[in-house]
């Protein structure tokens, strides 16, 4: 199936010149809108009726924020999607494909085929904040950070237990260190705001790392201002 790409800023799902983006046609039965501003670009895209499927890359927002909702009867040929990616790690092969209650099956099948033909795997889910993985993983990561603070076990023993006991490739602490505690803080904060569930409230260690990065940025800005000021005086 031919597909057309509309770029709308840097994409977390397909960063840079990803082959999925470069292989796209000028015009396609399906339209894939990628980038941080995909929702806004979708709002401006008028040629919707002729397309089999229109796929809008999502961040932490719901698809309904772009399409609108209608008493549980919403749904058309428009789907949301995001390749699952933890913080600074590269995107995984998993595409979370977001449908609404009345999304057309032809659009779902077309979207699934589009990704699967290019080696990705698709998990279909409803239009809920956090989709599948963030919704499942963030409370687990928060609990691991909290229990580390409470002295349940050392970070190494927590990781070893969850690797050896459950066959996970990585323990939660080492995974968060690798992919970024501050990014975890951002995602879980957005879910906390969406659900009001304390399990999503960012754990202390995630907040501290977020604060540290912000303070570093402020410090760098302050230092730059001082350098610029000194340079001005020198002129």
């Amino acid at each position: 199936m031919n597909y057309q790409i509309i770029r709308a800023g840097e994409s977390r799902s397909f960063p840079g010149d990803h082959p999925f983006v470069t292989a796209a046609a000028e015009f396609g039965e399906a339209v894939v809108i990628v980038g941080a501003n995909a929702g806004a670009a979708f709002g401006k895209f008028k040629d919707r009726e002729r397309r089999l499927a229109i796929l809008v890359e999502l961040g932490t927002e719901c698809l309904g924020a772009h399409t609108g909702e209608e008493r549980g009867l919403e749904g058309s040929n428009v789907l949301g999607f995001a390749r699952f990616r933890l913080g600074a790690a590269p995107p995984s092969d998993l595409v979370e494909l977001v449908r609404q209650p009345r999304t057309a099956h032809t659009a779902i099948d077309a979207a699934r085929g589009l990704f699967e033909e290019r080696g990705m795997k698709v998990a279909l889910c409803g239009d809920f904040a956090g989709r599948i993985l963030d919704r499942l993983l963030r409370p687990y990561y928060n609990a691991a950070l909290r229990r580390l603070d409470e002295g349940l076990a050392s970070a190494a023993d927590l990781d070893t237990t969850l690797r050896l006991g459950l066959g996970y490739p990585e323990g939660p602490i080492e995974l968060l260190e690798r992919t970024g505690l501050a990014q975890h803080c951002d995602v879980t904060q957005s879910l906390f705001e969406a659900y009001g569930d304390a399990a999503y409230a960012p754990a202390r260690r995630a907040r501290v790392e977020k604060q540290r990065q912000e303070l570093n940025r402020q410090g760098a800005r302050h230092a730059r201002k001082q350098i610029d000021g000194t340079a001005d005086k020198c002129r």
Partner: protein
Amino acid sequence: MSNGIKTVGVAGSGTMGAGIAIVAARAGFRTVVYDTRDEVLARARKQTEGFFAKSVERGKLPQAAVAGVLANLSGSTDVGTMAACDIVIEAVFEDLKVKHELLSRLDKVCPPHTIFASNTSTLSIAEIAAGSGRDDRVVGMHFCLPAQLMKLVEMSPGLKTGDATFQVAWDFCKALGQTPVKTRDSPGFILNYFLIPFNNDAIRLVEAGVAAPADIDRALKTGLGYAMGPLELLDLVGLDTHLLVAEALYAATHEPRAAVPALVKRMIAAGHLGRKTGRGFYTYQGNAMFGGG
């Protein structure tokens, strides 16, 4: 051998007890299994022989070694046989009263130096130790299922466990060829504390219509590299077993994520326990699974 431990007792010959006995005998310890029922001991012995036969088939153990390992292993319905043990690992039903009755009897027959280890996954080591008659020589040693294949052992000292006792048990665990990790004496220790709420959360996604079981499992396997998704795992473990462990964890923590979702009770009522009844989150025919997509 490890810190003077030569003879190991295993109290309880169910799945966990039999697995722990295999680990101890395979590591070269004289191992005595105690159970109140002859037929349970006989069944465990048969399963053990079957396990070693498979180990030989798979090249994990030389045939010549099997006779020696099995010679290390004996079973008895006489609690007096535990008198020869330097450490006794209890793997009986997860009920504090049952464990106290057992430990109290063991305390009468075992010499003072014998360490009592509990394979509990949910009860407090300090509470178990309180009914043992020797609360400074009780330690948590939670093996993972199946014990004979899984290397991990969660080790927890109770409030009164002596440092020397814990060290002897730790060294013994390493001498078994296992990988010990130290955890506080806290409900669910590490493994169940994280696993049970995580599995409950996955069930809640199904319950709330967020995604189908196959999509949830596929997401975790593809996105995180998990060997098995939580709903496949729950079908394997059995929803009735999950209910027991989750209710115990919830009773101890009152954490909302540990509370069993209503869907579990509905599925149990309908007989959808998982693989063992042919239907859980997926359906099964023999070894074939349906609904996995």
